[in-house]
């Protein structure tokens, strides 16, 4: 049996997926920043020369997470709409799933991490996460609110460990996993 499907890794990847999904879509729905969830600008990866996250939105390659935020902001624009319950964009997650694709992830890993965590510890994992759901345009804050238009969306993330946060456990707000690749499609 592959280390990728080792019981601990599967459990840890599922939990990491849940944490990421909960965080990411809450931030997006609240119009808050999601840049810290991407690998860009994280010390360990920057120092080791990791390329910036690959972000592809509806077929358009976006250079930085900040630009993706700008697109999200652009998508939310409805300046003439007086009713706050008709101008939101709300992502509703209907399903997600994750696989470990490399249980022995080493890129930019501090030696301590390599020493302490075996590939079956569910820590040094590269994961692929797919999320599916519906995005509502011109709607309110809550599930079931009326909407103007809706689309199905599909997100695919590749996540890697955030060494900065793992080395300093207990740091508040530090994401445990970072996005190195994000593919988004809404139809």
């Amino acid at each position: 049996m592959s280390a990728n499907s080792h019981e601990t890794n599967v459990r840890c990847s599922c939990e990491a997926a849940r944490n990421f999904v909960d965080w990411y879509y809450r931030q997006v729905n609240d119009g808050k920043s999601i840049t810290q969830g991407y690998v860009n600008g994280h010390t360990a990866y920057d120092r080791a020369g990791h390329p910036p996250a690959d972000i592809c939105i509806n077929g358009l390659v976006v250079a930085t997470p900040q630009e993706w935020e700008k697109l999200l902001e652009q998508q939310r624009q409805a300046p003439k709409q007086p009713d706050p319950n008709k101008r939101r964009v709300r992502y509703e997650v209907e399903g997600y799933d994750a696989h470990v694709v490399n249980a022995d992830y080493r890129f930019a890993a501090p030696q301590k991490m390599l020493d302490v965590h075996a590939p079956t510890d569910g820590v040094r994992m590269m994961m692929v996460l797919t999320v599916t759901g519906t995005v509502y345009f011109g709607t309110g804050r809550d599930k079931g609110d009326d909407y103007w238009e809706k689309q199905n969306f599909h997100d695919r993330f590749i996540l890697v460990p955030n060494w900065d946060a793992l080395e300093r456990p207990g740091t508040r707000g530090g994401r445990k996993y970072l996005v190195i690749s994000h593919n988004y499609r809404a139809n």
Partner: protein
Amino acid sequence: MAPPTGPRAGHGGSRPSSRGARGGTRGAGGIGKRRGTPRTDRDGDVSMDSINTGNPPTGPAAHSTRGNRGARGGRGGGPARSSSRLAQNVRNYVADQDGTAASSKPQFNKVTLKIHGLKESKAASNPDGGLRSLLGFLERKSSKERPITLGRGTIQGDHVWLKVNQADAPHLLRLNGFTYAGAVLAIEETNGPMPGQGNQPTDGADTKPSDTKDKLMAVLASRYNPEQKLLDLSALGADPILTTMGAFESKPLAEKSFKALMRITATHYDNAAEKDAAIQAVTLANNDIQDVVEVFTMAQTLPRLLRLDLSGNKLDDFSKLSKWRHEFRRLEELHVVGNPVTNLPTYPTQVIEWFPSLQILDGRRVRTPEEAAEALRLWFPTPLPRLPSNLRDGGNNVASTFLGGFFALYDHDRIALARQFYDDDSAFSLNTGAESASSAYSNYSRNLDTIGVRGSSAQQRLFTGSNLIAELWARLPATRHPSLDQADEWQIDCHTFPSLADPSGQGFAMGLAITVIAQFEEVDPTQQLAGTRPFARSFILGPSKPGAPHPYRVISDELTVRAWKPQETSVAIPIPAVGPAPAAPAAAQAPVLDEVTRAQMIQELSRQTGMNAEYSRLCLAGEANWDFDLALRSFHEKRADLPPEAFVLPA
């Protein structure tokens, strides 16, 4: 929404809703007198209370016939009674739509009363046996503390049977022993069942709700133009059916009737999209509309209306139109001519401002389609633009080659596919999202959102290793994916990424992440119905272990399927089975060549013609349908038209 259960449920007075009691269906009969304080409710039901309905300004004289009946006991005349009955039926629909009336509920708190004495009274000689005037008498006498509205009674033998609200019963029982038209009334509560409906028609003017609905439906049908997708609701007051029904004989009743028409329109279609497609235009011309509040419901029933005609009404001010200023965001054409409001100096500007999609106002173009799209964008968040597939797979067409082979084999020979591209470490799982209908996929759905991240299902529904994966695939429905040549059918994004584990155990390897969104054909196994199922599939490809048939393998394969939908064309095209039968099913399909043969043909065509692999593939897959000679011939015919990039560049 529960349909009305029958005539009884249609009673304004038989429902606990305050509408029935306050709606002014009684008094001395008819709609003329109203109690209750002015009230504006959300569904536009304003004028019912806010207009002084004793003298409707525009409606025909609703009460002109009052008293002509000469009914003793003073109950109102025929048309008014019929109107109020109709109003109750109409209101029943409207209330049903509002969700305020549960059709089964009222029966719980009902009390049956048995009244004796009508036969002995002078009113017994009335055309209806005196029932109507008796009910009027009881209502008047019992309504000392608060208005009480009675339902329809039934005369059976010497008794009148009547169902009343529990709370009203004591007030009515107090009337026991009263003298009515020369006879002493005996009123008692009974547990006996009401005599059957319809055995003895008691009120000739009564209309069952279903009749009302049928008639209103007939009105709508006669006024619908399928070619123009137009619902012609002009001059409703002159409609022969509605006139017979008395549905528009007063303004409040007209509004109720209009609401009922809208309600029937709304429920006639299965879904909003169907409704929007069927009704794109409405004319409300010549309806004496003074304020769009009177017809406000239409904005909720037909929010995506494209064309609207309001001409020939009595809208005299912007405030009379302003209730709709946040509605009809898609309205492209509007006619207001023949309304006093058009004489106001700011008339066109204000209306154009209110309706962002408006392009034609009173026959004049006021916006171009582009300007309208831009104006609408300011009102609603706009989805991001969609670009076609984005393939960044390192220049070797690895993704297209892999996907071409992958889906052909997935459709025809899943066992071979699992052997070729999957190894012991490969992982597969599927996810049905929020799909509500159960399908062959449901039991295997590894949707962590619904099965939870800690349960055993998350482990069990992760299929690792080519054998397990092939076993699962054999249980999934047969599919047919569109050809990759149909670029419009596919959204494929891919790019390479670093830091996969190298299978040799040394260093890092590059991976290829591919996301595919498309839909495949799938036959519904229970009904043998052809249909399609949208899906998304995410692959992570990495280098193979030594000795594998291909240089790369699938490390992760996550399939997301969405709800199956039946095909619009009913012709079911047989999809070959993909059962676990080891006999190569692909061989049974004459035109289907395995990928290896195809690759060889592409290579050979490329060698003979000088075209690159992509164009060679296109040439073979097109009209030639993998007939090598045909493809070669077609190349020679079209050679002059081919772009330079079709050919392999000289090294």
